[in-house]
């Protein structure tokens, strides 16, 4: 459905079967499909985990936690069944890569789930797909059924004497469910409210059993690691940041699209070379490097390697790989407002700093953008956002606060411009909602 793009700088590992009809099981088998899981069946579970550790694969959902390490936290013995969960609740604004994997290569996800299962000693895996992606559930349902029909899933997989079941599970619209413990709640048929941690899912997860939960892209990276080796995968990226990533290049560029590039690829090259440069002959103003929750980078900060550690040092995050590129005509107050409007809508309301914080930030930014802000509001927005950090069960509160803090810090002048040029000096027509100055705000 979604258009595929291509660029010579790409290194195709996860996307190597895109556009090749690999949702068909025969085609998948022709393209080395299900070889990795058969190899893994002959391996010791610790050997699988060590291979993934060697690969320096880190979670592609956003947190960037070392995948092999995560798997090793699962206790060997457990009275309760263990589970593998694949997180396909892709909904971080800016991110549309898992959609392509599920559409073009669903069997690679099934295979990744199976290998994770063999590594931790689980025999059931669930692939959670967000409700909006119904066409992908249809593709996945068929892929799973085909795998059962061939004896790759179910009892005695590949004649190994071992059993493994995989099911897909559908969501019904909720960003918050992308958080691992909220996803488990949702899969248990409840509201997607995050759980307190510890205990972590590796010990007490789905249905109370030890659970490994990984992003779609993470799991789709596992079969090539098993087949071609962890060292090979690690060598594609930068130290401690193995492999390639599907970077979603979005926004004000000439050739937006999802490109697979080595982890650590330079951001400016990504924009100018791969993405074809800023559109309409304009200049770069700022970039959100890894989905809406990541602190913003100013144009002069964009000559940077896109890996987890380098971005962390620069005060931002690699996140989910959703790169949002903004040209010099973008109003940063409006951008901050739209971002917070999203988090306000998606906050589950369980933790008060997030529920109230996102709401007040939305109100303040709306008023500000409409030209009714006060100078002290700039500091108030900052103060409010900072007080959300680290005070919630899950990361949604941080995800809302971090971009807001960074935009106020780095583009304070634009907030000040709104006071003088009211309503919005950048795009006056875009102001659709006027809010009165709150009583007592002076």
């Amino acid at each position, binding site marked *: 459905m979604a*258009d595929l793009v291509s660029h010579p700088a790409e290194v195709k590992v996860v996307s190597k079967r895109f556009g090749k009809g690999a949702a068909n099981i025969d085609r998948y088998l022709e393209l080395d499909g299900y070889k990795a899981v058969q190899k893994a069946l002959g391996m010791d579970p610790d050997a699988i985990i060590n291979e993934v550790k060697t690969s320096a694969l880190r979670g592609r959902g956003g947190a960037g936690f070392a995948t092999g390490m995560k798997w090793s936290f699962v206790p060997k013995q457990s009275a309760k069944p263990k589970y593998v969960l694949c997180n396909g609740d892709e909904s971080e604004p800016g991110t549309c890569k898992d959609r392509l994997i599920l559409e073009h290569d669903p069997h690679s996800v099934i295979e990744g789930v199976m290998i994770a299962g063999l590594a931790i000693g689980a025999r059931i895996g669930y692939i959670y797909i*967000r409700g*909006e992606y119904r066409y992908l559930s249809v593709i996945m349902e068929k892929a799973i059924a085909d795998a059962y029909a061939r004896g790759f899933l179910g009892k005695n997989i590949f004649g190994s004497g071992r059993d493994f079941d995989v099911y897909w*599970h*559908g969501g019904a*619209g909720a960003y918050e469910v992308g958080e691992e413990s909220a996803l488990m709640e949702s899969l248990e*048929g409840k509201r997607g409210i995050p759980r307190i941690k510890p205990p972590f899912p590796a010990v007490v997860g789905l*249905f109370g059993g030890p659970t490994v939960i990984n992003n779609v892209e993470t799991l789709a990276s596992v079969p090539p690691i098993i087949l071609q080796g962890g060292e090979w995968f690690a060598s594609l990226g930068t130290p401690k940041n193995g492999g390639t990533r599907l970077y979603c290049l*979005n926004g004000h560029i000439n050739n937006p699209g999802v490109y697979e590039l080595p982890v650590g690829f330079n951001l400016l090259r990504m924009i100018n070379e791969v993405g074809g440069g800023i559109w309409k002959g304009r200049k770069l103003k700022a970039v959100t490097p890894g989905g809406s929750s990541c602190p913003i980078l100013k144009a002069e900060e964009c000559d940077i390697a896109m890996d987890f550690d380098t971005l962390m040092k620069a005060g931002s995050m690699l996140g989910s790989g959703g790169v949002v590129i903004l040209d010099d005509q973008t109003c940063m107050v*409006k951008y901050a407002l739209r971002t917070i409007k999203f988090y306000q809508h998606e906050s589950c309301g369980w933790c008060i700093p997030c529920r109230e914080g996102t709401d007040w930030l939305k109100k303040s930014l709306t008023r500000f953008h409409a030209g009714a802000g006060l100078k002290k509001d700039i500091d108030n927005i900052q103060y409010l956002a900072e007080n959300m950090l680290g005070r919630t069960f899950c990361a949604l509160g941080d995800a809302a606060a971090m971009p807001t803090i960074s935009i106020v810090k780095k583009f304070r002048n634009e907030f000040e411009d709104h006071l003088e040029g009211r309503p919005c000096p950048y795009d006056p027509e875009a102001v659709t909602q006027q809010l009165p100055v709150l009583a007592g705000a002076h």
Partner: protein
Amino acid sequence: MRFSDQLETRIATMLTHYPVKRSILVPTLLFVQDEVGYLSDEAIAEVAKRVELTELEVRNVISYYSMLSLKPKGKFNIQVCTNICCMIRGGESIFDHCKKKLGIGHKMTTPDGLFSLEEVECIGACSWAPAMQVNYDFHENLTAEKVDAILDDYKRKAQQ
């Protein structure tokens, strides 16, 4: 209340996938909504019975998920994304265009029951922005002209 044979089979199959009945709740509610048109009192009571929960517990879950609806929607539900990537490539004017064209606002339905309109959060079409979904179908790289053609297409479909 009995659902279509296809949905009854699906529910029966789903029940074998989990150690607890309740797990089928969220996907089942969405499938039921697709079939009935919305989550009617009768449908909620039926689902509650199937998963052995009270209606109140089921309603508590429904209120959390943005796709689940207690009210009927139009035959074609237009969901325009205005989140950051769509916004910066004209998503808001696409939404305004839809409002004018259909004569309705956010979460409203045309009098003929054909179209509903909704401003939605990120639908995962960021690299092909601006984008919208009509029911489950994605429409991407939108312009006002493209939207006109798409809506006319659905109108024709409805007449067939």
